[in-house]
C-alpha cells in the first residue's frame, strides 16, 4: 500500500522578474513503512516539494500549486493533502503527518522549555491534560534516547547541543505517532557522528511504529543506507526515480551518473592510486527565471545531442518501477528492444 501518492505536483512563485516554477510535474509514491528519499542539489525544488505537501508555503509569495497528493490516513481514508480544508489539514499536521526541519538550532521556540513544546502538540491533538502531556513528553524524550531525559524536560533549547535539539525535534514530531514523517535535511546541520546517531534513531523509530518517511537530502551516502526508494530531482523536475539498489548499481540518467561520480569513494576504487582530482559536474544549475527550452540538464551534460535542446523530455519507464527523464536513455531502451 502507498501511504502517499503524489501526482503531477507543481508549485510556482511570483517574483519581481516573473513567475518561477520551483517544482514542476513531480510524481512519486511512498510505501507504508518505507522511506522514500528526494535527492537533489540546492534549488532543485526538494524542500519546496516537502513544504507544499505540508501546505506550509508562505502565503505572501503568491504561490500557485497544482496536482494531487493522496494520503492514506490512519482510518484508511484517502485524502488529497493539497485540496483539504485548512482546518482539517491543521488537525493532520503534527498528528498524522509530522515534519522535522533542517535547523534544530532555530526550529525550537527559545522561550519555552522543551517539555512544554512537546506537550503542546500532545495537548493539541490528543487532548491530554497538563500532567498527562508532561508524562508523555518525558516518555517521548526517553524514546528518542535523550540522555538524562527527566532533567532535560525543564531545560530550554539554548541549554542543549545541536544533536540533542534534533532529538527534541524528533520527539516533537513523533509525539502523536504520525504515519508519515517528512524529514527535510534532518542531519545536514549536525556533525557526522551525531548524524549517524540521529539516522539510526529514525530507523529504529520507523521499525517500531511502521511510519513512512519522506527523506529530503542532498547526501547520497545517507540515501544509500537509509532509503528504500529514491527520487532524484533537478531544476524542479524528477529526472530519475528508482528503488535504491538498482539506482546505485546502474544509474540511468546522466545527472544521477554524474552525481554518483562526484562521491569521493566512487572516484577511487580499492587498490587504485588516489586520483588527482575529484570529479565535479561542470557549469551551474540554470536560472529558474530562464530555464533552457529542452532538458534542464542539457547545458551540463556530456552526452547531450541536438534533440536534447528541443523539448523537455518525458519521464519514461526504464525498468521495473524505474523511470528516467532522458531521451538518450529512452532511445537506448528502444534500440535494445
Amino acid at each position, binding site marked *: 500500500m502507498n501511504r502517499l501518492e503524489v501526482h503531477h505536483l507543481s508549485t510556482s512563485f511570483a517574483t519581481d522578474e516573473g513567475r518561477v516554477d520551483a517544482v514542476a510535474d513531480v510524481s512519486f509514491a511512498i510505501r507504508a513503512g518505507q522511506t522514500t528519499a528526494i535527492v537533489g542539489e540546492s534549488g532543485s525544488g526538494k524542500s519546496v516539494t516537502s513544504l507544499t505537501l505540508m501546505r506550509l508555503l508562505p502565503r*505572501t509569495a503568491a504561490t500557485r500549486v497544482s496536482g494531487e497528493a493522496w494520503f492514506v490516513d490512519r482510518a484508511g481514508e484517502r485524502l488529497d493533502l493539497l485540496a483539504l480544508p485548512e482546518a482539517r489539514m491543521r488537525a493532520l499536521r503534527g498528528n498524522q503527518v509530522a515534519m522535522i526541519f533542517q535547523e534544530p538550532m532555530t526550529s525550537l521556540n527559545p522561550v519555552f522549555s522543551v517539555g512544554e513544546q512537546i506537550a503542546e502538540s500532545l495537548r493539541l491533538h490528543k487532548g491530554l491534560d497538563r500532567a498527562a502531556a508532561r508524562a508523555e513528553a518525558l516518555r517521548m524524550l526517553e524514546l528518542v534516547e535523550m540522555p538524562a531525559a527527566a532533567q532535560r524536560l525543564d531545560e*530550554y533549547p539554548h541549554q542543549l547541543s545541536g544533536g540533542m535539539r534534533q532529538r527534541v525535534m524528533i520527539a516533537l514530531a513523533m509525539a502523536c505517532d504520525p504515519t508519515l514523517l517528512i524529514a527535510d535535511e534532518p542531519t545536514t546541520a549536525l556533525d557526522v557522528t551525531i548524524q549517524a546517531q540521529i539516522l539510526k534513531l529514525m530507523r529504529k523509530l520507523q521499525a517500531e511504529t511502521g511510519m513512512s518517511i519522506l527523506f529530503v537530502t542532498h547526501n547520497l551516502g545517507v540515501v544509500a543506507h537509509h532509503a528504500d526508494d529514491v527520487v532524484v530531482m533537478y531544476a524542479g523536475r524528477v529526472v530519475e526515480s528508482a528503488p535504491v539498489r538498482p539506482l546505485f548499481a546502474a544509474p540511468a540518467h546522466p545527472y544521477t551518473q554524474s552525481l554518483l561520480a562526484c562521491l569521493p569513494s566512487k572516484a577511487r576504487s580499492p587498490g587504485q592510486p588516489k586520483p588527482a582530482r575529484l570529479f565535479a559536474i561542470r557549469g551551474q544549475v540554470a536560472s529558474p527565471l530562464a530555464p533552457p527550452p529542452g532538458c534542464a540538464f542539457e547545458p551540463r551534460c556530456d552526452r547531450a545531442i541536438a534533440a536534447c535542446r528541443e523539448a523537455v523530455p518525458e519521464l519514461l519507464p526504464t525498468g521495473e518501477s524505474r523511470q528516467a527523464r532522458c531521451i538518450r536513455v529512452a532511445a537506448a531502451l528502444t534500440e535494445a528492444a
Partner: protein
Amino acid sequence: MRLPVLPLVVRKLFRRRIVLGAAIALAAVIVVSLLAGPLSGFDPNETAVSQRLHRPSVEHLLGTDELGRDIFARIAFGGRFSLTIALLTSAGAVLAGTLLGLVAGFFRRLDALVMRVVDAMMSFPDILLAIALVGILGPSMLNVVLALVLVYTPRVARVVRASTLVVRELLFVEAARAVGVSTTRILLRHVLPNLMSPILVQASFIFAYAILAEAALSFLGVGVPPEIPTWGTMVAGSQQYAHQALWIVLFPGLSIIVTALSLQLLGDGIRDLLDPRLRKSM
C-alpha cells in the same frame, strides 16, 4: 510563561546591586505614597500663610511651599496620583500598542493600514498632541491618562511590529505550524512571549515618560486640576519661587527623577531575567 520558583528569580534579579537599589527606591516611593497621611501628619492642601516658604526643618521635613503647605505631605499624596497616572498610561499604551503591532506585523495585509495611522499619530510632537487632546477632553485625571495612552500607543506599536516581523520569520513559527498550531495560538503562545523583552523595555520607558509628561502637562496648565497634588503640578505651581526657595521644586523634581530612573533600571533587570537566552549571563 512559567517561571522557576519565585524566590530564586528574585535572588537572581537582585544579584545586580543597581537593580536591587532601584527596587528599594521604588518600594520606598510606593510605601511613602500609600502611607502619606500618617507619615507626614499634614493635609496636603491645608494652607498656612504664616508658614510660607519655610526651609526644611524638623516640623516640615522638606519645607513648605508658597502657601505654607507641607511639601513632604504633598509629595507623598502626589505620588499616589503621579504613579497611578503612570501605571494606567503604560498599561494602556502597552496593551493597545502590542495588539496593533502584533496584528500589523503578522498579518501583512493590515500592515499598511495600521502603520499609516500610527505614523500619522507619531508625526505630532508628543506633548503637543497630549495638550490638544486634554484641551478637547477637559482637564481630569482620566483624560490625562487617555491622552497619554494615545500618545504612547504608536511608539509601542512600532517596536512590537518590528520585532514581530523578525520573529514571524523564525523557523520555530513554521515548526509550530507543522505541528498543527492555529494562527491565533501561534501569535499568543509562540510570537508574543518572544517579544517580552522589547515590550517590557517599552513599558518601563513609558511609565517613566508618563510621570514626566504628566508633569509637563500640569506645568503647562492642561494637566490634572490644581486641587489634586501631583509632582508635576507642584513643580509647575511653584516655579516662580524657585530662586528664593529651591526646595519647593527640588524635592518634587527629585521624586520624579528617582522614580523614573528606578523604573528604567528595574525594567532592564526584569528584561534580562525573563529572556532565557540572557539568563545564563546574569
